[in-house]
């Protein structure tokens, strides 16, 4: 259906002028990428649409004062558009809706895609390199939200690098009842938190978008993270109090934590003495909800956890990031559930 170029060397020599200050410049030619931006098959008028541009000159200041380059998606599609949010702005739709995600990669100096992880659309709309194409202009991903639950979206071009650089955001499908209900027939909630737990290897964060695609050892087999974050907030200290992560609620309320394993390493989350009832994972209801005081997860898993604390207190949640060979803890992020 699509004209997939077998080997692509885009615009050699544009690297000098094309750099975006954040490591986004061309590195002298890419291999095994599949540029295209075709018309969307069977395009219809959507029930809801989202516009996403890209940025490759963002940064995150860590608790130790260092600044690390971050890439991501903008809301609205303009390069200077709606800021450089990290994680990227959430996509939130309702079960049954036909959704358009309009990606604009802002010129042909690099390639990106959006893969709606856990959403299972047609091949053309799955957003994966040579199975569909790497977007070099604009593309409208068309899909239908069939199952309520917690997902995330991320770039699937040179994924090992682009997702690590921060090109991801939450993707939430609400049931027809709307926010406040996890899924039809499932639990309700009063307070919601999205914890996308990720690790950062800052030594990867100065690479070009196409690093390694022509071969050569650029170290992408070896992740040695030095920062451990929750939803774009440093888990060393900031996430303990940052209202984007830390939860404040009243005893008797129901809290939904949408926990997204956004990094590559296994994680072990401990809920600080609270018990969670896990109702869903990966956008599907569990046959029987399970009660846990923590979880051990692997890359890209999602768990939807309901808390109903009855006792006021400060509960410190720890997320240990585990070496994928030894299982040793290589870092920890912390946040809090404050129950009044």
């Amino acid at each position, binding site marked *: 259906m699509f004209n997939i170029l077998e*080997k692509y060397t885009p615009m050699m020599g544009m690297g000098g002028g094309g750099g975006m200050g954040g490591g986004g410049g061309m590195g002298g030619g890419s291999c095994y990428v599949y540029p295209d931006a075709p018309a969307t098959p069977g395009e219809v008028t959507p029930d809801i649409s989202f516009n996403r541009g890209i940025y490759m000159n963002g940064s995150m200041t860590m608790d130790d004062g260092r600044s690390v380059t971050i890439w991501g998606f903008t809301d609205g599609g303009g390069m200077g558009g709606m800021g450089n949010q990290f994680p990227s702005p959430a996509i939130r739709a309702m079960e049954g809706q036909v959704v358009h995600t309009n990606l604009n990669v802002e010129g042909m100096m690099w390639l990106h895609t959006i893969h709606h992880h856990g959403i299972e659309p047609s091949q053309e709309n799955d957003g994966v390199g040579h199975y569909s194409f790497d977007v070099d202009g604009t593309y409208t991903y068309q*899909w239908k939200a069939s199952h309520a639950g917690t997902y995330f979206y991320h770039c699937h071009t040179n994924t090992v690098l682009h997702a690590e650089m921060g090109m991801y955001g939450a993707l939430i499908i609400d049931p027809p009842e709307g926010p406040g209900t996890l899924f039809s027939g499932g639990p309700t909630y009063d307070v919601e938190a999205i914890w996308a737990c990720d690790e950062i290897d800052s030594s990867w964060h100065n690479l070009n978008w196409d690093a*390694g695609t022509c071969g050569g050892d650029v170290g992408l087999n070896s992740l040695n993270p030095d920062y451990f974050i929750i939803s774009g907030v440093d888990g060393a200290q900031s996430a303990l109090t940052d209202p984007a992560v830390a939860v404040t609620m009243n005893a008797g309320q129901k809290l939904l934590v949408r926990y997204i394993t956004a990094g590559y390493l296994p994680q072990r989350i401990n809920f600080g003495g609270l018990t969670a009832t896990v109702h869903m994972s990966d956008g599907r209801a569990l046959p029987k909800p399970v009660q846990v005081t923590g979880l051990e997860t692997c890359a890209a898993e999602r768990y939807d956890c309901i808390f109903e604390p009855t006792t006021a207190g400060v509960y410190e949640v720890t997320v240990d990031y585990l070496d994928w060979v030894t299982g040793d803890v290589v870092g920890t992020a912390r946040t809090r559930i404050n129950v009044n």
Partner: protein
Amino acid sequence: MKKMINRRNFLKFSSAGIASALAASTGLVSWSPRAEAATINQTFVITEGFITQPDGVDVYFKSFSPNAASLTVPGAQIIVQEGDTVNITIDNTLGTDHSFVIDGIVDSGIIAGGSSKTVSFVVNSAGSYLYYDGLNAPYNRLVGLHGAFSVMPLGSSNELYAGSATFVQQYSWVTNDIDPVWHDAVRLGNAPTSAFNPYYFTINGRSMRVPGHPDYANPDIDSGYAPDTRLEGSIGDRTLVRILNAGMCIHSMHFHANHVEVLARDKQVLSDVWLKDVVRLNNNLGHTDVIYPFDPPPDAHPAVTTGSFPMHMHDEMTQTAGGGLYQFGAATSIKFK
């Protein structure tokens, strides 16, 4: 290879696994149930040699091969049924000691270099197993001495265990993580001294190639096209995938286009079947069994029944080879016919 001081004759292959040597030569494990137990005989020849990786580098391996002239990593898939008597003859052509182990079922003990040994055992418990060399652990296993061993329920053609969810076709995937420094230490008869640094990632001994690469779609080389790895089906062709980890890394298996039903993990039947798009695979002999249902991709609009999608690990370091080359790692394709 020219500088090799070892006098043995090394085999060299462009890829692991010689498809014609597999017990399951079509890739799909074909299986016809029997009402009665049978005696199954299998011979393995332990050989060594080099396999060329996606970046062109030759890496040393050993394997349970069908004959002295081949190097088959992993070894042939074996499938039997409950009650069968299995006789495995291992002919060790190398100068080093090796063994043949299936946890909980058989352990040959030392098979000295230059000797042969036959182990006989009865299989009683349906499920998915890894056979491997338990000596010099984990090194002999990591350098290729491993393979998939499946036990079907007595008289059943479509269950993982009696009463399980059913399927119409089945595959076995053995994953591995390759540190060429460790492999070379084993070649030289040394214990590796460096920290494990996986540099290539395989399913059934192969890694992915992509359009534009000369080995793309070569079923002997490209894990996206190797018939024992690539999932192919039409709508409703529920497919059991037995996933066995011979390697050292904890993995996260991400299936596109359908969620899978997770039936078992690490030899434990899971009483509640979860639907997952990501499945954890523990390291060092970790295992999971899943059914890929080949349902129409649920979120397609307009609806579709055909397409090609990836299955890849989401610990994305595994999607590289030689420190780069994204999409030349441990992945395969899922083809809706």
